[in-house]
């Protein structure tokens, strides 16, 4: 028996490349029988926003955050060689040509395999994201640090 059957991934980054790594590892681990939880925090939280949603009133700074940060897997960008979007576009083109699953497909696979997504309440609060803005995902919940530590205990932890 392997030492660890539980994997917790902290998705800190909001970059396309790093989020790809998060979801490739998460789906691979879930497909290998591990219990997997993704814990988004800071910029990673942006990935889970819907393109359109109705929200309660936001402050001026919250509106700027909301406008400047990406919404969902279509809008996240590469951490390097983005070149105003040309790099991200080229990468997506190459992935499609080479039959590599894109972030949307990986997120769908994660949902099908029962990967849990946990969203950091404090990041949401800080950036002014509201629960109404979050995507529909079967196993989505909200957490604080104690919840994360409890989930991560005795398992593998990755910070991406």
């Amino acid at each position, binding site marked *: 028996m392997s030492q660890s059957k539980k994997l917790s991934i902290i998705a800190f980054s909001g970059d396309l490349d790093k989020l790809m790594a998060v979801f490739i590892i998460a789906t691979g681990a879930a*497909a*290998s*029988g591990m219990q997997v939880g993704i814990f988004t925090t800071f910029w990673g939280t942006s990935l889970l926003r819907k393109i359109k949603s109705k929200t309660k009133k936001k402050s001026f700074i919250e509106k700027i955050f909301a406008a400047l940060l990406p919404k969902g897997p279509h809008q996240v960008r590469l951490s390097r060689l983005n070149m105003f979007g040309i790099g991200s576009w080229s990468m997506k083109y190459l992935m499609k040509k080479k039959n590599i*699953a894109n972030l949307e*497909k990986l997120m769908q696979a994660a949902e*099908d395999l029962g990967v849990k997504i946990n969203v950091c309440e404090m990041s949401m609060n800080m950036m002014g994201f509201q629960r109404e803005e979050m995507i529909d995902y079967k196993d989505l919940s909200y957490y604080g640090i104690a919840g994360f530590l409890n989930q991560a205990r005795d398992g593998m932890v990755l910070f991406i």
Partner: protein
Amino acid sequence: MEIVDATKVQCPMPIVKLAQAMKSLQVGQKVKIQAVDLAFEADIHAWCEQTHNLLIEFSAENGIFTAIIEKQN
């Protein structure tokens, strides 16, 4: 025998498809999977070890890997 076609996907989708196909099988039933992902040979051995399933047959021909796995649990 159930057949999983993973010849049009890359890592990690072959094992994702395989795991999904395994769910509907009973212990002792077999599944055949074909893939072209170059990591598949190493991955399928690792996957079987990790999930305690039995790799009965493995072959590579014209760039296509074929594996037959028996569900053990």
